[in-house]
């Protein structure tokens, strides 16, 4: 029993944090929103090189996996920095392809190295306009799609570009393996936790500087208590995330997804309220996280689906 990240895992998080801070990730996300993928692709190679996707890919295909705790560590950082692109979908694609040996040897190594990015969708595929590998979940099966239509629909999160997969393609798996979806759900939970932590940090900094009535608004109890509640929600979601990464049990992952997404979204509402009108503008960077907190709730397991999974499977005493 030692429920703490190791020094190596913490160092991994710090190195990603440093990389993403130096890379001016908010600018990369804004360009990505406009369909300019060059900077995002360059950043993608660097985070892949730093080992973001390797934990989801078995060693046989040049990864280091399965290492779900390391994956969660990495995705908290991706969320904290609002990294654009189909990061979760590339993890899901890796998990799906790991079960399809005839394609894995060709398609997985470039996902690990960052030479290729993958997406997975059904009606829409996130960033399918730029992804190199497009998988489609349809009729309970997994298909290798020929690609997506070039036009995209906007998402509530402008950095998420929703493309429509082209019909047809090659059958990859006759059934969607539930374990693979678990990886996507875990990665989304981690990303959401990171989004919430960033929103909290930025809002704490803002209310410490914003002066009204002659004092920082962060000295007011009404402001403090909202931020305290955000901190409580996030800090109790965090152990659920890492507990789920340790067990990879579907109900544990679902619990982590509910808690992380609820905490991140509640923090987003608090962040917007405490920033006031500046927070409601597209030009202020807070918008990158505010909008992501909303859409991650529905990604790879809605709150209702995840709570149902908890009721089916979470047993507390054993």
């Amino acid at each position: 029993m030692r429920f703490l990240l190791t020094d190596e895992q913490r160092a991994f998080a710090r190195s990603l944090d440093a990389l993403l801070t130096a890379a001016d990730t908010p600018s990369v996300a804004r360009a990505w929103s406009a369909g300019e993928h060059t900077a995002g692709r360059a950043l993608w190679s660097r985070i892949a090189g730093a080992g973001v996707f390797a934990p989801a890919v078995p060693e046989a295909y040049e990864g280091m996996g399965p290492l779900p705790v390391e994956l969660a560590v990495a995705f908290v950082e991706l969320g904290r920095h609002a990294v654009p692109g189909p990061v979760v979908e590339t993890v899901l694609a890796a998990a799906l392809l790991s079960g399809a040996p005839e394609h894995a040897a060709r398609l997985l190594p470039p996902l690990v190295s960052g030479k290729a990015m993958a997406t997975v969708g059904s009606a829409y595929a996130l960033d399918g306009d730029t992804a190199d590998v497009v998988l489609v979940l349809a009729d309970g099966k997994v298909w290798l799609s020929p690609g997506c239509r070039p036009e995209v629909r906007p998402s509530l999160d402008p950095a998420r570009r929703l493309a429509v997969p082209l019909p047809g393609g090659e059958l990859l798996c006759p059934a969607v393996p539930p374990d693979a979806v678990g990886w996507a759900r875990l990665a989304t939970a981690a990303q959401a936790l990171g989004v919430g932590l960033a929103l909290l940090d930025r809002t704490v900094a803002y209310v410490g500087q914003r002066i009204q009535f002659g004092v920082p608004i962060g000295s007011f109890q009404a402001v403090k208590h909202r931020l305290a509640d955000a901190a409580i929600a996030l800090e109790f979601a965090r152990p659920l995330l890492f507990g789920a990464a340790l067990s990879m049990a579907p109900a544990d992952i679902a619990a982590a997804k509910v808690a992380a997404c609820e905490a991140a979204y509640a923090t987003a509402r608090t962040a917007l309220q405490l920033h006031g009108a500046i927070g409601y503008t597209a030009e202020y960077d807070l918008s990158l996280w505010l909008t992501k907190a909303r859409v991650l709730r529905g990604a790879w397991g809605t709150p209702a689906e995840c709570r149902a999974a908890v009721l089916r499977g979470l047993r507390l005493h054993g």
Partner: protein
Amino acid sequence: MDLTHSPADEAFRTEARSWLAAHVPSTPLPSLETGEGFAAHRAWETELAADRWSVVSWPAGYGGRDAGLLRWLIFEEEYYAAGAPGRVGQNGISLLAPTLFAHGTEEQRARVLPPMATGEVIWAQAWSEPEAGSDLASLRSRAVRTRGGWLLKGQKTWSSRAAFADRAFGLFRSDPDAPKPHQGLTYLMFDLRAPGVTVRPIGRLDGKPAFAELFLDDVFVPDEDVIGEPGRGWRIAMSTAADERGLTLRSPGRYLAAAERLLALWQAHGGPASMGDRVADALIGARAYQLFTYAAASRFLDGTPIGPEASLNKVFWSEYDLVLHETALDLLGREGEVADTRWAEGYVFSLAGPLYAGTNEIQRDIIAERLLGLPKGRR
């Protein structure tokens, strides 16, 4: 990261589980907030102590098992999973005892702890006063120097368990001329049946005398019942408060068991979809609290003391407990009104959680100022 217990710790779990299976009363004891229930719960403390299960984390010399934090958490999981009674000795065991371990003398520990472990002496808290609640440092009750000890004068209130308890501990103003409110306070223990003590029980919402007012009229306390240095009581009391909010007052085992009972209740009512999300959230919250505690325990065992994050804990468990019981009463529908049930008793108890051990407003101030670093302001 590792969430598995060692084989030795699992063996300890098995030992606790089998003892509890053989000893936990098959029918629930009467409410511990009544005279009859208090006596029954005291007898249960004695039964626990007879086989050294009442204070597993204490040194063996005082009646414990030197069990350590992880085994204490395991014991608590087993204790509540077995449906064992509430702990009438909790005030003493989880608040006064840690204070004595940290600040008491060997003589005090040897004299006070063994009868606490057996339930022979049940302790009440004496912190709040009519004009000193969240602003505890403004307390006015006096401790006046006299030959061989101190004379207590004043009034304490909301004193949990005091209606039936034997002794109490709390803070008294020994130096009214100290420059700041939290200076000149002394931490001491006194007998609730000593001459000069008047105990007026107070009925909580359901009328049960869960707490009391204490009127103190020149109550003599010998020097041997002062904890730590006179005048330094605030710092000592704050260390007790951190324990209360932190790891030791409300163990995860309590909520894991309550959430399991809620799930069973929901299933027994046919698993109504309209209540499913709330039941799921209760399961998620219990797991979150368990894992948060294991993370905090791991940090503690690594040498990091429990700090202001104890306030995260206190707000979480107190609000969680209330919401869990509200969910149960809603599931029970019209039956939820019936008060002599375990759920209703638990509900009334849970209503007080956000108020005691430092109100949740004070905890949120601590979180904002000491964890998040926000500027101090007017309360």
